[in-house]
């Protein structure tokens, strides 16, 4: 890996690049799925290549190849420089990077059991056992289970002297029970939608989830939803379970704080942000109890956004995003940090693969725990709807007006959880919603969830992000609009 990267940056320099970095990535996937008692997907894949990013003539160029001969790498580096010179035809200013010292280091994620060394038949057995439990419940029309594993070994080198080797292991697993009856399709997922829980851990994550032990419960809930009352329409207090709140953080905090979006670089596809530069350290984002960080460090937890260094060689950091309700920080890279006068990048450049250009991505964007015990929060609530497990999600291109629906809900009346509700949904304006937060549960109820499917960029890249959250309460929220006639 080192030789390939060095060939790349040496060639780029010779061709006239004033800056170059190279990422060699060796990515391995395993996907296993089952459906109604049969194996669905069973596949493995591997991909090895190099991505070379350069500045030449004051403009950016990037080229990637899987031809890892000296000749192939050098041709790719030369193409990156030629592309940069073409970019210079339409430049308005020279690319400038915030300074970053060279780093020479090795980092490895915290997995215990390598999922690729676990026999695939053992993984299938777990999914088929959960599948059987779900289908034992009368009314279940579709039982599905899945596991996905990814091993990423990467080497980064730059003309500034950085040389960084990293190894990450990502695991995920989940089950879904779907029921069709009358004129409705309902479903319940465990432990979350989007393929369940995903973390930077090994097979020990799958073992900790107890998929089989939760299969019957979610199957019964899926069936019960057909006879549950419809979530009402109006304004209500809501309590969001932590997985749904994780996605709420992702959409209404994580995306709008991306500085490339704020500066207009994503305007054509992902959109802009309501968090214009004048809002930094002046906007009340939420109530006083709302504290959000972007934390890629391992001490935050083994999330999908955890690493030693980002994909332009900047060490993992913790950036305060919302501090006691005040908006205090963006996600930045070396270029955008320089553009707004920050001294250093926040370290959020990430790439899906060797073939993609790194772009600003969420790391672990987490709501810090509050002080409430979950039982106390319920007991303290007179009239609310408790919502769990995302079913649909949508937010405007400035990340301001959103609507979410969840798989299941329950009434909370006079301090107790009551009857089940189907088709729960809520909507609102980002800052009004976070401003209405009046209770956040404590660390013991806090989970670092993984969102494996975040799309951004052109060409679009899919990235995994982490979101820590504990159940929280919000007042005066609009509910039921998704199903209003």
């Amino acid at each position, binding site marked *: 890996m080192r030789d390939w990267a060095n060939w790349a940056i040496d060639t780029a320099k010779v061709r006239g690049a004033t800056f170059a970095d190279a990422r060699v990535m060796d990515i391995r996937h395993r996907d296993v799925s089952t*459906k109604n008692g*049969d*194996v*669905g*997907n*069973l*596949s*493995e*894949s*591997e*991909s*090895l290549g190099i991505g070379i990013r350069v500045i030449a003539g004051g*403009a950016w*160029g*990037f*080229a*990637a*190849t*899987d031809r890892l001969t000296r000749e192939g790498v050098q041709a790719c580096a030369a*193409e990156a420089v030629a*592309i*940069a010179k*073409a*970019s210079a*035809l*339409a*430049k*308005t200013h020279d690319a400038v990077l915030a300074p970053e010292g060279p780093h020479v280091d090795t980092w490895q994620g915290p997995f215990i059991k390598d999922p690729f060394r676990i026999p695939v*038949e053992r993984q*299938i057995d777990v999914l088929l056992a959960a599948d059987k439990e779900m289908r034992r419940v009368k009314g279940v*029309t*579709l039982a599905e289970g899945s596991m996905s594993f990814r091993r990423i070994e990467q080497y980064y080198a730059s003309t500034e002297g950085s040389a960084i080797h990293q190894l990450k292991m990502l695991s995920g697993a989940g089950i879904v029970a*779907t029921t*069709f009856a009358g004129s*409705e*399709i309902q479903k319940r997922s465990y432990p979350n939608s989007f393929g369940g829980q995903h973390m930077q851990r090994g097979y020990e994550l799958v073992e900790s989830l107890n998929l089989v032990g939760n299969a019957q419960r979610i199957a019964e809930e899926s069936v019960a939803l057909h006879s549950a009352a419809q979530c009402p329409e109006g304004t209500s207090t809501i309590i969001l379970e932590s997985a749904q709140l994780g996605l709420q953080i992702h959409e209404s905090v994580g995306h709008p704080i991306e500085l490339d979006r704020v500066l*207009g670089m*994503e*305007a*054509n*596809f992902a*959109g802009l942000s309501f968090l214009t530069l004048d809002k930094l350290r002046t906007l009340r984002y939420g109530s006083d109890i709302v504290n959000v960080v972007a934390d890629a460090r391992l001490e935050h937890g083994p999330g999908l956004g955890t690493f030693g260094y980002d994909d332009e060689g900047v060490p993992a950091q913790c950036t305060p995003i919302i501090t006691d309700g005040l908006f205090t920080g963006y996600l930045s890279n070396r270029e955008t940090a320089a553009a707004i006068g920050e001294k250093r990048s926040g370290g959020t450049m990430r790439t899906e693969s060797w073939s*993609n*250009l790194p772009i600003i991505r969420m790391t672990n964007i987490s709501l810090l725990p509050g002080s409430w015990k979950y039982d106390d929060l319920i007991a303290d609530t007179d009239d609310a709807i408790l919502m769990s497990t995302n079913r*649909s*999600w*949508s937010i*405007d*291109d400035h990340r*301001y007006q959103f*609507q979410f629906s969840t798989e299941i809900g329950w009434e909370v009346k006079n301090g107790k959880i009551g009857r089940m509700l189907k*088709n729960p949904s809520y*909507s609102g*304006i980002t800052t009004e919603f976070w401003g209405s937060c009046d209770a956040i549960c404590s660390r013991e109820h806090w989970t670092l969830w993984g969102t494996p499917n975040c799309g951004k960029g*052109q*060409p679009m890249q899919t990235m995994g992000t982490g979101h820590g959250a504990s159940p929280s309460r919000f007042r005066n929220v*609009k509910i039921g*609009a*998704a*199903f209003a006639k």
Partner: protein
Amino acid sequence: MAADHRLGPGALRELAERIIKFSDADETEVDIGAVTDALTRFANNTIHQNVAEQNLTVSVRTVVDGRTARATTNKTDDESLRRVVRAAADLARFQPKNPDLLPMLKQQKTQKVARFFPATATAMPAERARAVARVCKATATAKQTAAGIFSTAMVETAFANSRGYFAHYEQTRAEFSVTIMEKDSSGWAKANSPNIADIDPDALGASASRKATASRAPKEIPPGRYTVILEPSAVLDLVGFLFYDFAGTAVLDQRSMFNKRIGTKLFGDNITICDDVYHPLQLGTPFDGEGVPREKVLLVDRGVPRNLVYSRATAKKMKKQPTGHGFSLPNEYGEAPMNLVFTGGKASVDEMVRSTERGILVTRLWYIREVDPYEKILTGMTRDGTFLVENGKISGGIRNFRFNQSMIEMLSNVEMLGEAVRAAGEESFEMVVPAMKVRGFHFSEVTKF
């Protein structure tokens, strides 16, 4: 000119045969994909990303004693190819027998389609940069701000198996997309084609610019039910959510909106949909992931869902014939129509506007998600050019709306149809769809811009 990176059917067949010889499985299938992709991205009236990628992927499926699995690599030395063949066989061995697995196909006759344009394959970064520079300059002169992409790509695909089947396909693709912004308004335009000569960046830029100008100082009007005129991109991104419902497997799994509705009148008389990869405005391989030649299928006939598409295994289970829409095996989703073609009408968008007393003209939709899978309620936002129509004229821009709309209801309320065109959006792959004038479209909330 840039190099034409095509490997050609001869070299790909040789590679596939070499891989098949490495295998001692009962049956072996090889998919090879060679991609050359380049994209110039601009924002704030300047190029800020400019990328190129080359990759060759080899995917091997083996069958061992009635079991199948797949392994994929982009390493093409003999040792790596032997390893990927072995990995596919090892994965296959350690699983229960698959009762639905069918023998691999012998050679099939596939229809030739011409979708490779050398001018697209050999487009240079400087060519894209010059076009982007022209659009940026015009935008800056108009005191507006442009962001977008100009991309070119070439894909070569080969499919082969140990029964002697071999098929080859190649296509190119060029795409230009632009958003032009003012202080409180924006406009958008996008087009793609296999032939770069069909792409006119200056015209697309001018269209987006006009929309940004026309939607200045947007007014807020209350949410509710309105007559809407949906431009083709907006229609595409809505009806694109229907495509998997037409899969035989989706109906078998009881997760399709067509569960118990095939043969029942569901949409208006003016809605006819087929899947047709051979349509002159479509792209895609003339064979599916199992090597079955694709067929044209009438899916909805004058409002009545008539047919589904079937992979080989699904067809056997449902006592139908395979239609050539199967995904590569193994998979849990079966098949889907990827080349939807709506039957259009004759009305222009201008005629739709002229015939509307009060309504809303929508350029583009955004962040569409399914709220209810059986009633097919979708939610999402309008974006980059939303206008109020009053007394047959566009009266100005309005703030963007959130919608929650059943597709069954929408496709029952279509009053006028435009000519079906190859539309490009952001939520769905490209299809051939018309602009539509729809009554009673449900906007549930309004945003702040």
